[in-house]
């Protein structure tokens, strides 16, 4: 008896294109809405997708709840970083930063509120903006990226107030030290620089690659990720992931992780880090690896902890990276499910 072979259904051009797009997608940045119920994710095609966390976490979640409620084309180039204020979503990519109203986006009206470009030294260069940082005390935004400078922009007036120069190569990441309003920036030149916002000067420089305990010359000297907890700082990337005591500029603990880490953050008494490799790593300050939870992407680029007080039921950790999926961890011990573009 001949087995009936079903005729091959020709896939439309559009579907093939979309499948290829999803295959090659990288999600660079994430941001949680001020109400805590929605998550925005920006990818390398310049699109931003908004996922409803409350729908995906509810007990009657279906497959469609894990898809975005709205996707729109935000930038021409990749969206490297995003940050949320209490009403706006700010996204930055190749050279400019745009603002969107959360209320508008949730109603599917995707028109940008404003767009600004920091003053670059020459008009020919359009450097990418790798990191955005909000300074709530002075209501300003700090941008840093390819032109090796930190630009401060006042959010009310939109003017660029300072340009902090000191890095000799492009800047990867920023962190805010709350007690004394200082900004830490880490870049490709291997140095972590602390800037005082009031005097606009560089206060301290830590050249990570010069310290023997953590330097790994075969990986390079670039600092890919920074996080700070007022007295302490964690940084990683080319050199090993290390915990530093800022006052004395000494490396106290080196975390034994081979793969370069691309995002690190402090959480309660742990340090969470993610980078090349599927897992989200949880470290204790003493240097012990507490847990390694695998995600669904082959490499992770950003972690986001939803700690908004307005939505305690959506308190999750989301991780995204070299794929079109955003992993959601409801409990730090395992991956609950994945949202997908």
């Amino acid at each position, binding site marked *: 008896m001949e087995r009936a072979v079903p005729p091959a259904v020709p896939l439309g051009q559009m579907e093939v294109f979309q499948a290829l797009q999803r295959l090659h997608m990288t999600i660079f940045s994430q941001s949680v809405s001020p109400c805590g119920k929605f998550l925005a994710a920006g990818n390398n095609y310049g699109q931003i997708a908004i996922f409803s966390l409350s729908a995906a976490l509810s007990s009657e979640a279906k497959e469609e709840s894990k898809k975005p409620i709205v996707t729109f084309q935000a930038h021409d180039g990749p969206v490297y970083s995003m940050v949320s204020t209490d009403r706006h979503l700010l996204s930055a990519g190749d050279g400019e930063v745009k603002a969107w109203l959360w209320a508008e986006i949730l109603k599917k009206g995707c028109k940008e509120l404003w767009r600004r470009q920091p003053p670059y030294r020459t008009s020919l260069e359009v450097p990418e903006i790798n990191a955005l940082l909000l300074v709530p005390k002075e209501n300003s935004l700090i941008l840093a990226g390819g032109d090796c400078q930190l630009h401060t922009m006042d959010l009310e007036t939109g003017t660029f107030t300072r340009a902090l120069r000191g890095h000799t190569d492009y800047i990867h990441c920023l962190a805010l030290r709350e007690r004394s309003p200082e900004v830490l920036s880490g870049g490709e030149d291997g140095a972590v620089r602390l800037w005082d916002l009031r005097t606009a000067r560089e206060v301290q420089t830590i050249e990570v690659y010069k310290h023997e305990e953590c330097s790994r010359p075969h990986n390079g000297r670039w600092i890919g990720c920074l996080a700070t907890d007022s*007295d*302490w700082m964690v940084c990683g990337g080319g050199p090993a992931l290390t*915990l530093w*005591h800022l006052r*004395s500029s*000494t490396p*106290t*603990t080196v975390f034994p992780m081979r793969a370069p880490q691309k995002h690190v953050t402090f959480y*309660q*008494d742990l340090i969470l880090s993610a980078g090349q490799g599927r897992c989200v790593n949880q470290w*204790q*300050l*003493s240097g012990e690896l507490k847990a390694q939870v695998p995600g669904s992407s082959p490499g992770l680029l950003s972690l986001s902890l939803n700690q908004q007080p307005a939505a305690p039921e959506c308190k999750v950790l989301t991780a995204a990276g070299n794929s079109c999926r955003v992993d959601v961890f409801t409990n730090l011990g395992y991956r609950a499910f994945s949202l997908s573009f």
Partner: protein
Amino acid sequence: MERIALRPENWPGTADEVIRKRLLIDGDGAGDDRRINLLVKSFIKWCNSGSQEEGYSQYQRMLSTLSQCEFSMGKTLLVYDMNLREMENYEKIYKEIECSIAGAHEKIAECKKQILQAKRIRKNRQEYDALAKVIQHHPDRHETLKELEALGKELEHLSHIKESVEDKLELRRKQFHVLLSTIHELQQTLENDEKLSEVEEAQETSMETDPKP
């Protein structure tokens, strides 16, 4: 007559309710109902019967049926009482469980706060440990101070020695200077004396060659 009353079409109100109630109540089956009907029929027959003995036996039979009916009624009443008390009991247990659930919720919230506190404490302890490790690498302060003191003393001692040696040197130098200058003076004086004596000798010889003017 009863048969007609028993037919469901003739029942007033909702048929379901009545059926349900009847089925529930009539736990004993059609026994009780039939017994009562039989009793009524036998009573009527007994009233209409003639002979004494039959009447007596029928009377006995009726009494027994009556007592059976009373017994089953008593049983039903007791069961009803029991059900009421069970209901009360269940109400009580329900309330207790609700209270303990609320108590457990509160305890959970307390414990969560305690966990956060404990995590903070652990973090502080680990930070302390990390700093302590770094500090351990550096040598002990007391020892370094002691070493510094010892070195200081040595330095002082050596400088004392140097001073005394220099003093001695100065003294010697001065003494030699005095000696040398005295020697020179003596030399000078001797030379002067020699010159004087030569001059005197020369004068004497010239006076001898020229005695008479």
